C-alpha cells in the first residue's frame, strides 16, 4: 500500500499546482482584458503590471540605447550610453519615493551606477561591458518593479550567457536581438515576461 501512496500524492500535488497556476493566469487576464489575451497567444510566457511613472523615463531611454549599442557590437557607443545612463541614475530622486522602498532603491541605484560607470570606462572591452550589462539589467528590472515604468518592456532571457547560467535583459520589443552576444548569436533568447504599465 505504502508504495502506491507516494506516486498518488505526487500526482495530486501536480494536479493541484497546475490548477493553481491556471487560476493565477486567469486573474491576470481579467485585469487587462482583451489586449493581454491577444498577447498571451504569442511566446510571452507571463506578465506583470507596474505603476505608471515618468520618474525613470531617462534611465530607461539610456538603458535601451546601451542595450542596442551592445546588440550592434558597438563598444564605443555602449560606453557613451553608459555615461549618459550613469548621469540619469545620479539624477534619480530617491527621497521622492515611498519610505519603505528607499533602502532597496538606494542599493539598486548604487549598484546600477557602478555598473554603468564600468561600462562607460571600458570602451574597447565589450565582454567586460556585457558582464556589467547583465547585472545592470537585473537592477533595472528591480527598479521598475518598485518605481513603475512609462512604457511596456519585455524581460528577455538568454539561457546560454554566463557559462549557461543564463542572463536577462529588458527590451522595448518582443523581437529577439541579443545584447550579450551581438552578431555572434543575435537570435538567442526568448521573452520571459511582459512588464505592462497599469
Amino acid at each position, binding site marked *: 500500500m505504502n508504495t502506491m501512496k507516494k506516486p498518488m500524492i505526487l500526482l495530486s500535488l501536480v494536479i493541484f499546482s497546475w490548477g493553481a497556476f491556471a487560476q493565477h493566469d486567469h486573474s491576470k487576464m481579467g485585469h487587462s482584458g482583451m489586449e493581454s489575451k491577444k498577447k498571451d497567444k504569442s511566446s510571452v510566457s507571463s506578465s506583470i503590471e507596474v505603476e505608471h511613472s515618468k520618474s525613470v523615463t531617462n534611465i530607461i531611454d539610456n538603458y535601451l540605447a546601451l542595450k542596442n549599442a551592445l546588440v550592434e557590437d558597438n563598444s564605443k557607443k555602449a560606453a557613451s550610453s553608459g555615461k549618459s545612463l550613469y548621469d540619469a541614475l545620479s539624477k534619480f530622486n530617491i527621497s521622492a519615493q515611498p519610505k519603505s522602498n528607499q533602502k532597496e532603491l538606494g*542599493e*539598486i541605484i*548604487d*549598484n546600477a551606477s*557602478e*555598473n554603468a560607470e564600468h561600462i562607460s570606462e571600458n570602451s574597447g572591452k565589450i*565582454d*567586460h561591458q556585457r*558582464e*556589467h550589462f547583465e*547585472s545592470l539589467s*537585473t*537592477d533595472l528590472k*528591480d527598479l521598475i518593479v518598485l518605481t513603475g515604468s512609462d512604457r511596456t518592456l519585455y524581460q528577455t532571457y538568454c539561457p546560454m550567457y*554566463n557559462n549557461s547560467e543564463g542572463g536577462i535583459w529588458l527590451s522595448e520589443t518582443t523581437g529577439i536581438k541579443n545584447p550579450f552576444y551581438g552578431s555572434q548569436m543575435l537570435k538567442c533568447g526568448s521573452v520571459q515576461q511582459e512588464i505592462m504599465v497599469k
Partner: protein
Amino acid sequence: MKWLKRFGIVLLIVLAGIQFIPSGSNQSSEVPSTDFVKAFNINEDIAQTLSNSCYDCHSNHTNYPWYNRVQPISLLLENHIEKAKEELNFSEFASYSTRKQKIKLKSIISQIEKDEMPLASYTIIHRNARLSKEKKEALIDYLNSIRRSL
C-alpha cells in the same frame, strides 16, 4: 654645464625633502566582521591565496615591501591602493548589498580567469602572489560556489 649641476642639486634636495612625507599606513590590525574571509567562513587554503595575491591592494591591510619607505614610491603605492579599495575592498565585502556582492564576485572571477588580476606589475615583484594553474582553478571554483549561494 652649470645648469645641469644646479638642476642636480635641486633634484637631490627635493628627493631628500619628500622623504619626510610619512609612508603608507594601510595596516589596520583588526580584521573586521565584514571581512570576506571571516564573514563567509572561507577555508584556509583559499584564505591564504587571497591574502597572498589580493589583500595587499584590496583590503585594509597591506604587507608593505621595503621600498614603501622610499618616497615618491610610497605616495604612488598609496594612491594605487586607495583606487583598488574603492573598486573592491575585501575588508568591507560583507557590508556590500547582495546584488553588489554578486557582481563583484563575478568580476573577480572573470578577471582572474583572464589573468588580468593579480596585476602583472605586482606579481613581477611579489613572486608568491602569482597564481599557479591549480591555485587559480581552485580559487575560481570556490568563488563560483559562493557566488551561486548568494
